[in-house]
């Protein structure tokens, strides 16, 4: 399945783009997305352990299974306010 991951702030800056599409096996978890992203975009490898993921606008833990068509985003530590 294709999974589109939106990138923000330092993640967007490091990757040089605001989203990336990964081809993943059906049933992939957030942890597997994170590993694939680190492999495909080495510039993100150092920060990915500190970056949360959101699926469908909710924070998602590593064991969350991503469905095809889900909106996935990298959420670096937030600093709004």
């Amino acid at each position: 399945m294709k999974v589109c991951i939106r990138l923000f702030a330092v993640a967007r800056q490091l990757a040089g783009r605001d989203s990336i599409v990964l081809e993943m096996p059906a049933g992939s978890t957030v942890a597997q997305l994170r590993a694939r992203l680190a492999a495909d975009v080495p510039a993100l490898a150092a920060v990915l352990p500190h970056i949360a993921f959101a699926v469908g606008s909710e924070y998602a833990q590593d064991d969350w299974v991503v469905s095809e068509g889900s909106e996935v985003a990298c959420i670096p530590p937030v600093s709004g306010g």
Partner: protein
Amino acid sequence: MIDITTQPIDTAALLRQVGSPQAGAVVLFLGTAREFTHGRQTASLDYECYPEMALQKLTALEAEARTRWLLTGCAIVHRVGRLEIGEASVAVAVSTEHRQAAFAAGQWLIDTLKEIVPIWKKENWADGDAQWVHPGLETPPEARDATRGRAVSGPSPTADISSSEHTGSRR
């Protein structure tokens, strides 16, 4: 009332919005762009958000605050884009019958907003450096716009977001 806007925050409109004949107290909090951080001068700030999720999280914050306190009015507005020194990046306004609840709700809303809402600040330092602020994350050198950068560190805010988190698998 929840909003994310690129325009200056209209505090008079917010105060009108939360005003109510049932209210005896209004608390307005503004976060404003400070010129100096640990002695280092800021020229301007850029705020970026994940719009869909930020609006959803702000809406959820208001709903959660309304379960914790009896609010007669509540408004949260975050500004994004370029901010000059002194401008407000965020406004939280609440009204209640009595003042204790207004202070408690206002403080809880801004504290929780800063922990969970996907909005990010970039410091554009007066020395020409620029840097995304990610508490707990040492920004690697390649993420700096100039070479004199120094990452801001602090406790990770992502530890406290479990209340609205996906846990476990969905199928």
